[in-house]
């Protein structure tokens, strides 16, 4: 099985983006991945709010922009569109600070409301 080579900036950028997204008002947490969802069906399970499975970062070409796909669960007391926009802005600003030489294409999907 093959897998993409780790990108130089990916771990650092991923941590920074995950932190930024979690700090956005109206964001409950990043969407859990398959393991988090499976664990949630077990008795006594608690949501894994520290998971960053809802974050995908790719850089198709060396000189191209970052492609960042963010999946979030929003809080019920916030307007979904506003949360999505705030998340997108936070990610864009985060990339501008972490890697100012490269732009970012950011996609935000709200996968749940709690």
């Amino acid at each position, binding site marked *: *099985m093959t*897998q*993409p*080579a*780790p*990108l130089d900036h*990916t*771990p650092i950028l*991923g*941590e920074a983006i*995950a932190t930024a997204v979690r700090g956005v008002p109206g964001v409950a947490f990043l969407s859990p*991945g*398959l*393991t*988090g*969802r*499976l*664990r*949630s*069906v*077990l008795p006594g399970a608690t949501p894994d709010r520290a998971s*960053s*499975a809802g*974050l*995908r*970062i*790719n850089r198709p070409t060396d000189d191209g922009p970052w*492609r960042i*796909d963010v999946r979030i669960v929003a809080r019920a007391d916030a*307007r*979904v*569109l*506003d949360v*999505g*926009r705030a998340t*997108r802005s936070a990610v864009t600003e985060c990339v501008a600070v972490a890697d100012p030489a490269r732009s970012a*294409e*950011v*996609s*935000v*999907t*709200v*996968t*749940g*409301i709690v």
Partner: protein
Amino acid sequence: MTTRIHPPESPHPDDEQLPCGRLLSVVWTEWEEGTADGHTATCAHCLRATAELEDLEAAVRQVRDETDDLAAYDATPLTRRVMDVVGLELRPGRPLPLGEPDEDLWVMESVAARTLRAAADQMPGVRAGSCRISPAEPTGPDRSALPLAAPQAVPRVVRDSDRIAVQLDIRAPLTTPDLPALADEVRERVRLAADGRLGLNVVSIDIRITDLTDPPDDMDPQHMDPQHMDPQHMGAQHTDPQHMGPDHMGPDHMGPHHIGPPGIGDHHMGSQHMDPHPTEPPSGPAPTNTPHGSGEGTGP
């Protein structure tokens, strides 16, 4: 023409990429086979991923150990929950566009449908059923027809519209004096929720009354008559019929008003059945899905 691009296609759409860049499936496989390299042994993300797998295995062992008679153990409920989770992960429904076309913002249809159904349920005696939400004028392929594909796996689809159409089935109280007015009120509540809670650009809301049910015992009869409803409570200050498109606001879009014979039909649905498909046998179950609805993630 403005365009909207669906979430970026990942080269490994069904896999989870850890922040370090490695794929979850590879990390798990190498850990199980004992072939993990030095990176996995020191990387916090890979270690966390393997710890999660160990947690899952421990949970499975615990269930097995706590079951005295494995042959008599009914694993059906747990299996159902696990398969529900896997199904949701693999096929979470389709994303609906939010905001402006170039913003690349999305909300999953099942999430939006839950919000809109809840808005309809706030009407006394009204119970929402199937809710289908779709782009009003899609130009790309219907994503709901794609089998077992995560959103990232779908090729980019260009849309020239972010306008959304809603089709909602409801059950109404049998004693409702004015069904068209009730449908209008439900439509207004749905519109307010779509705008105020979600931010969807909804251009049409079709309400289909699929059944008439006995009203709750504690229901105030006045609340069944939309003429007596308080417009402030209903949020009518935000009403903008022009925005909704008058062609879709009229009672004609409630669906056909064919009331079947009383006492026939599903006992859980009330004593009188409003059949939107008069050609169907009157004794069949009340329709809960729109003719084109996938029903996925949008049922009650």
